[in-house]
């Protein structure tokens, strides 16, 4: 089973999914991330799916779960780099990824986290869009 590496950049955790993951690897990633958020006190998690060719209901659910868990652990999750074909397919599949914030690319994802911080973001207000 492949494990997805989790990188730490300042107080942001970055996960870049590079290969076609089997379900167990997806579950392992979910657990790893929760542990790392607590261990590092990260304020944000960025999941980069630029290289991901499909998102099915299993991965979709994982993304939503990670977002909910991190939010509970006081970190914001942003999914970046979703390809147009993947987005169109997800809409047809019926998955809305409610509660998951998204950005076009890694850079914009980081900017989004910074912006929230400056505004006093999710740390002080529980409000999520």
């Amino acid at each position, binding site marked *: 089973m492949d494990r997805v590496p989790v990188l730490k950049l300042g107080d942001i955790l970055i996960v870049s999914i590079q290969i076609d993951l089997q379900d167990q690897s997806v579950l392992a990633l979910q657990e790893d991330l929760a542990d790392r958020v607590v261990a590092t006190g990260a304020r944000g998690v960025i999941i980069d799916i630029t290289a991901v060719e499909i998102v099915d*209901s299993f991965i979709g659910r994982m993304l939503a779960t990670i977002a909910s868990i991190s939010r509970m652990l006081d970190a914001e999750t942003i999914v970046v780099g979703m390809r147009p074909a993947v987005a169109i397919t997800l809409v047809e599949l019926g998955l809305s990824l409610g509660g998951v914030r998204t950005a076009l690319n890694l850079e914009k994802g980081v900017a989004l986290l910074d912006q929230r911080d400056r505004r006093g973001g999710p740390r002080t207000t529980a409000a999520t869009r």
Partner: protein
Amino acid sequence: MTSPAELPITGNGDVVLVRQQVRATAVEVGLSLVDQTKVVTAASELARNALVYAGGGRARIEIVHNGARSGLRLTFSDDGPGIPDIEQALTDGWTTGGGLGLGLSGSRRLVDEFDLRSAPGEGTLVTVTKWAR
């Protein structure tokens, strides 16, 4: 590729292999990128269902023709418990497995033709087709 191809689904790794083989065949048939993505996603859902609910099954991947059009046909079969109420199983959000209940209903929306045959104790057979535009 030699068409049709038969792949066993006995573990999580097989679901990945099915996705990859479906992608390769979808490219061969000439499906657009969006259509490739749709059919691979449907395949992923149906292969996982066979694994999760029936403990395993088989995937058949073949290229089909209708006049000048080419298409990709996928058949997922298993000898599992079967589905007692097909209409219910095809409803958005209905799940017995703690999922999102979108695998079957969503797959149906992602393909051009969708056929589900199942009865309690008789396994499940799902056939889907995606035509190149």
